[in-house]
């Protein structure tokens, strides 16, 4: 499973957890829709740091980096290379 797929699965299962929502597109908004709220961001950061063995510092926790699956994936890529 690539990183985008694994982020998508985490968001669907842990942050949305609604059986009616079965899929998310890479560019679907995650902040305006309330999917990543103040508690959601904590869960997501813990997941990203543990799964991808990275550390996201407070300067990187900005809406632009978490507005969609694509943005999160880009943040990951920049952290790894």
């Amino acid at each position, binding site marked *: 499973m690539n990183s985008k797929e694994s982020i998508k699965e985490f968001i669907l299962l842990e942050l949305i957890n609604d059986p009616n929502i079965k899929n998310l597109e890479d560019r679907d908004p995650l*902040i*305006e829709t*309330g999917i*990543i*709220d*103040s*508690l*959601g*961001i*904590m869960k997501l*950061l813990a997941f990203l740091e543990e799964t991808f063995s990275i550390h996201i510092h*407070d300067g990187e*926790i*900005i*809406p632009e980096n978490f507005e969609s699956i694509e943005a999160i994936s880009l943040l990951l890529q920049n952290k790894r290379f």
Partner: protein
Amino acid sequence: MRIVQFFEACKEKRLLPILHELIYLRREAIPVEIDLPISKPRVESLTKYNMELINISWNNFEKLQLKYHFKNRYLKALNYLSKGYEAFAIVKGNEVLGDVWYVSSTKSKQKLTHPDFKLFGIDLGENEVYTFDMYVIPEKRGTSLAVSLFSGSLQKLGEKGFLKAYGYFMADNIPALWLHRILEFNESKKLKMQRFLFIRRSKMVN
């Protein structure tokens, strides 16, 4: 008030987070400000959940007959109101689900102050307001209630004629950091913070 908070924390098994807020040596605070009215309010419809955003002041507190989940929040409210501070709260019936406090000097006869002003070098001007001590009950965390509460309160402060709101968040408090960033607060330079119970100190980060 602190003793009640201590016993409630023991009962709820939340003692460590409380101690983390009362005793620390090396944390960082980020002072923030935002122009009012805010450009991107994020208030969900509260009425469809039978909730509303109300203003709490010394004048209406007794009449509102509010119910607080924790006694220490009620005691805090009494303490803040006695100092002339006011709050916005999201309530369902008369049950308080979350509140955020503010202080201004414009609307009162005497010059109001707050201990944070000295720490963060804030000198409130005309039509400026300082927001602090936002709280949402544990059962409502993760429901976007915090965003509706803070965003709605800033909107109401703008409607009251305030032009700027100040505040701060601790850099390691991710929910608070996220809330201020999605509402697009401007951040000032970080300050190093030390606290031992009631004694707090701040220092600029080099």
